[in-house]
């Protein structure tokens, strides 16, 4: 089994707000991340797939196709967007980096070619904060 990773990035606005809480409670839990008028990040996204290298090509997966898939399914829907307002798969969810990683997994996992499995989503919100998601075991 070989693991293949593609790095993409996108810039987006968001805020952390639980709509069932008061502004004070949101402020107490999420601090300045709850700022009403949003803030934003440069996100770096590492998508890792796994599989056996194809005997004819030597590839686990054509990385150009992986890149296209990530761009179409994820980057075009997130880049220069407001994660809370503009992204269909984040509607009704808290826009934490954790939930965003799960959302990205759900967009990509069903669309990989036969024999290729999604291994992990690693999502950097800042150079010093990132989350990893390996799917439901």
């Amino acid at each position, binding site marked *: 089994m070989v693991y293949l990773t593609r790095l993409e990035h996108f*810039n*987006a*606005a968001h805020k952390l707000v639980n709509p069932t809480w008061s502004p004070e409670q949101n402020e107490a839990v999420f601090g300045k991340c709850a*700022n009403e008028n949003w803030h934003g*990040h440069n996100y770096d996204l590492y998508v890792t797939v796994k599989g056996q290298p194809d005997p004819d090509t030597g590839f686990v997966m054509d990385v150009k196709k992986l890149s296209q898939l990530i761009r179409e399914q994820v980057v075009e829907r997130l880049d220069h967007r407001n994660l809370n307002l503009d992204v269909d798969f984040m509607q009704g969810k808290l826009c934490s980096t954790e939930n965003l990683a799960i959302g990205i997994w759900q967009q990509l996992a069903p669309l990989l070619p036969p024999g290729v499995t999604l291994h992990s989503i690693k999502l950097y919100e800042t150079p010093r904060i990132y989350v990893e998601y390996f799917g439901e075991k």
Partner: protein
Amino acid sequence: MSNKVAVFRREHFNAAHRLYNPQWDQARNEEVFGKCAWPHFHGHNYELEVRVVGVPDPETGYVMDMKRLSDLIQREILGRFDHRNLNLDTEEFRHRNPTAENIAVVIFDLLRPHIDPSMDLRVRLYETPRNFVEYPVD
């Protein structure tokens, strides 16, 4: 040979913004600024480098106390811009387009009065790891 030394302090802040000229309609804004003009904002991790040049003080050996420089940036810049919407939440960009260029100029203007006039000040601002600007230019 000058005995001046450059000292640098790096800080960072995260903010939302959009690029928008209010004298143009949305279509014209998107023609010029592309997806940066989209109405619901986007955001960046801004990395800020502040450079101060001067002669080290004979008594302390410092060009400038870095703790003082750090506190100054914290108070004047991060306190204003971190986790804010530059267009909506700041006085500085209420009537000025928050491009990286304009943000660097604003940061310079906010810091300059608090740094000894005998010292040179320069600001470098990274909007992304691959887009950055510097002000002033020699």
